[in-house]
């Protein structure tokens, strides 16, 4: 960079030893990240911005012999920061991130089909005084919509290079002009940055000088504040920039800002004036350059669909229907595939016992690895079906409408439509849902959503429900077989989770997270036909990631739980079993009866071994805590073992109730054993009330280490995960206690 500005001269000296930095910015859904991936290829690293959980994507771009650092910033519609994502984007542009120099050039990616709105952020970036290159992306889609853009004229009017790019560019050669423009931009200097509201800029500069001079007299450690930040603080009343100014210069600066605002505008707010003048400038710039069919022709199909889909009544009914179909599909379509996986797991267990001699190794493989990992892999079909629906609904543009419809419902519990997609995602798994809350601008709303999300029935709760419902809820049909009692109970458990989450958000937003009702602005993209290849690629990615998790985390948990349930072995019990076995063999003559008697003995032996194993002892230690819920030590041990991951309970119950190998929720043996489990005095362990209590416990309790960790990561504190754990566990306990006492 060469410049006459002294501060830039320092930057120029530094550049000789350091890679030049190019920031990539743009509205969401402009293909910004795709372009970033194409430019950098595999030369990328991902980290977090300091102090916040916003991902920092940095890649290396080689142009000729030169190498540049490319930073992919989170998508933003404007430089007025409201969410953590947007704040991080602006901090990078202003050089506020530690160990990261301010960018030498900015690549702004804009959507050619929506050029007017996309130019808004362009005009803001141009004011920063950093050289800009505009990538006019999706020109192919614009062409297909009969939108023609005079690119050279646009570049001339904006006095900035504009390079057309194609949405799904696969060949790197097509990016050569863009690379050349970027290399040139890095070496460009801007002596006088362009400004739209010149009076605001001047007022901001004067105020900055004044504030700095005053602070310098009272304090020597004042943080540097750029004039641009003061300009933003003037425009975005109550925004992040103003908050920062108050932090640095004290609360007096807020009054000074307001005094300036009053001087700069009459009859409208400065933010309104800024938006109006910016859009007027954009309209003038685009005049005669962009020719597009009238909006009413181009968007007529989307609008016609929206008349039905976004209708308060018809739209809501349609939404219920769509969601109903999704859940129906998740349960019914997945069954054949799940049976197949189940069969494969049983076969693997049989093979292990047939090949290996009986003992610890065979048990580790069959009861530990196959039963543990198998009981999780069995959900792969359900997860893939659910995600196929979510991806298709998202890509088609329906999800945005669903969020819009749900805004009304969410508003009741103090949240907004922003929270809907994370809530929906948590029906599969709370972890990505909690990560998804980053799009929620208000911190209080975000935390309320994070606290509510783990209540939704995730895919790991399904097997527990399936086992308990099959064991304790009779298969009764009503209305000519249309309604099944077991299905009704499952629906009830889903509803219980929803009610739990909604009430939690409601209570939090009215007590410790009290705040004003959030505004919800969201872009409704036009309806599109989802690209099959893109859907498949993402599904394969999901399947791969899920299997990797099953092969690592679940594998580890299974092996550890198995070892706790297997060791220590009692030699006395084993010897006693051998004696009894010999007695049976000599006493019972009929082969079938003999085998049955030996099987019973084996089951009793494994139950007895289990009772004195580490897990058994742990179960007996904690049993008094669960005694009021009517649980025996076996159930207590299984529940304790399932605190890191709730789905583990199936495998542990299988072992504790001495069925042995290949246990899953379809296992008749486990179902019967659970149903017939008895106390030493012969009373049944599972009365209807206790069984229902157990289901309620699993519906409300936070038994997922991954969720606890992700809450910690997303809230940057241990206070919220600790609160969530204690709150949800207490709620689960109380729910189970109520059911046990009433049942």
């Amino acid at each position: 960079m060469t410049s006459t500005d002294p501060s830039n001269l320092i930057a120029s000296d530094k550049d000789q030893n350091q890679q030049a930095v190019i920031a990539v910015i743009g509205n969401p859904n402009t293909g910004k990240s795709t372009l970033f991936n194409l430019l950098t290829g595999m030369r990328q690293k991902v980290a977090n911005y300091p102090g916040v959980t916003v991902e920092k994507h940095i890649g290396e771009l080689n142009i000729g012999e030169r190498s540049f650092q490319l930073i992919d910033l989170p998508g933003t519609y404007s430089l007025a920061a409201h969410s953590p994502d947007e704040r991080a984007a602006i901090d990078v542009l202003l050089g506020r991130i530690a160990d990261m120099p301010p960018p030498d050039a900015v690549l702004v990616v804009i959507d050619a089909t929506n050029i007017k709105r996309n130019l808004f952020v362009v005009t803001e970036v141009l004011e920063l005084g950093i050289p800009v290159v505009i990538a006019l992306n999706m020109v192919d889609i614009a062409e297909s919509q009969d939108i023609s853009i005079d690119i050279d004229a646009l570049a001339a009017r904006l006095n900035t290079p504009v390079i057309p790019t194609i949405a799904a560019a696969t060949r790197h050669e097509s990016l050569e002009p863009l690379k050349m423009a970027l290399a040139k931009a890095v070496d460009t200097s801007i002596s006088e940055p362009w400004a739209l509201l010149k009076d605001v800029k001047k007022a901001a500069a004067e105020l900055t000088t004044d504030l700095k001079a005053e602070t310098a007299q009272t304090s020597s450690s004042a943080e540097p504040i750029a004039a641009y930040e003061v300009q933003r603080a003037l425009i975005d009343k109550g925004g992040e920039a103003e908050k920062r100014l108050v932090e640095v210069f004290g609360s007096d600066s807020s009054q000074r800002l307001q005094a300036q605002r009053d001087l700069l505008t009459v009859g409208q707010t400065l933010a309104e004036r800024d938006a109006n003048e910016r859009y007027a400038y954009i309209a003038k710039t685009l005049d005669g350059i962009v020719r597009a069919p009238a909006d009413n022709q181009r968007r007529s199909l989307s609008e016609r669909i929206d008349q039905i889909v976004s209708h308060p009544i018809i739209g809501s009914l349609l939404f219920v229907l769509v969601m109903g179909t999704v859940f129906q599909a998740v349960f019914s379509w997945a069954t054949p595939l799940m049976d197949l996986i189940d069969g494969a797991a049983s076969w693997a267990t049989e093979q292990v016992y047939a090949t290996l001699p009986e003992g610890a190794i065979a048990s580790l493989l069959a009861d530990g690895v196959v039963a543990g990992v198998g009981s999780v892999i069995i959900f792969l079909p359900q997860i893939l079906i659910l995600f196929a629906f979510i991806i298709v609904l998202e890509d088609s543009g329906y999800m945005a409408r669903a969020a819009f419809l749900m805004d009304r419902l969410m508003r009741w519990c103090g949240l907004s439509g922003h929270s809907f997609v994370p809530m929906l995602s948590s029906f599969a798994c709370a972890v990505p849902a909690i990560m998804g809350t980053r799009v929620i601008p208000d911190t209080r709303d975000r935390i309320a959503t994070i606290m509510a999300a783990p209540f939704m029935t995730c895919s790991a709760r399904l097997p527990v429900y399936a086992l308990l419902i099959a064991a304790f809820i009779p298969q009764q049909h009503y209305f000519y077989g249309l309604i099944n009692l077991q299905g009704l109970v499952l629906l009830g458990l889903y509803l219980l989770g929803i009610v739990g989450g909604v009430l939690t958000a409601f209570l939090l937003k009215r007590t410790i997270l009290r705040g004003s009702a959030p505004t919800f602005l969201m872009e409704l993209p036009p309806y599109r036909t989802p690209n099959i290849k893109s859907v498949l690629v993402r599904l394969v990615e999901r399947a791969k990631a899920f299997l990797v998790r099953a092969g690592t985390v679940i594998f580890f948990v299974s092996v550890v739980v198995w070892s706790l349930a297997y060791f220590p072995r009692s030699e006395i019990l084993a010897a006693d079993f051998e004696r009894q076995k010999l007695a049976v063999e000599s006493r019972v003559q009929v082969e079938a009866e003999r085998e049955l008697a030996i099987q019973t003995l084996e089951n009793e032996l494994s139950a007895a071994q289990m009772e004195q194993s580490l897990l058994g002892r742990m179960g007996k230690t904690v049993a008094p805590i669960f005694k009021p819920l009517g649980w025996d030590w076996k159930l207590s041990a299984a529940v304790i073992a399932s605190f890191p991951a709730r789905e583990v309970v199936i495998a542990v119950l299988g072992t504790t109730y001495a069925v042995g190998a290949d246990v899953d929720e379809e296992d008749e043996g486990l179902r019967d054993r659970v149903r017939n489990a008895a106390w030493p005095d012969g009373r049944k362990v599972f009365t209807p009330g206790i069984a229902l209590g157990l289901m309620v416990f699993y519906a409300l309790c936070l038994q997922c280490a991954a969720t606890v960790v992700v809450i910690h990561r997303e809230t940057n504190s241990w206070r919220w995960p600790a609160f969530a754990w204690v709150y949800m566990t207490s709620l689960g306990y109380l729910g189970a206690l109520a059911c046990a006492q009433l049942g």
Partner: protein
Amino acid sequence: MNSQQQEWLALAVVFLVAGIAIFRWLKKRRQGGSGCGSCEQSSCTSGDKTRP
């Protein structure tokens, strides 16, 4: 292999698996991993992993 030997072997496998898991976890922590690499991506639908 008698049952005693089998038990020792099984215990060795358990400790090996636990050791590898702890090692991987520590490695991930040292790298300050976030997002794609260390999250439970199994159910993440996002292309850039920062959106739901």
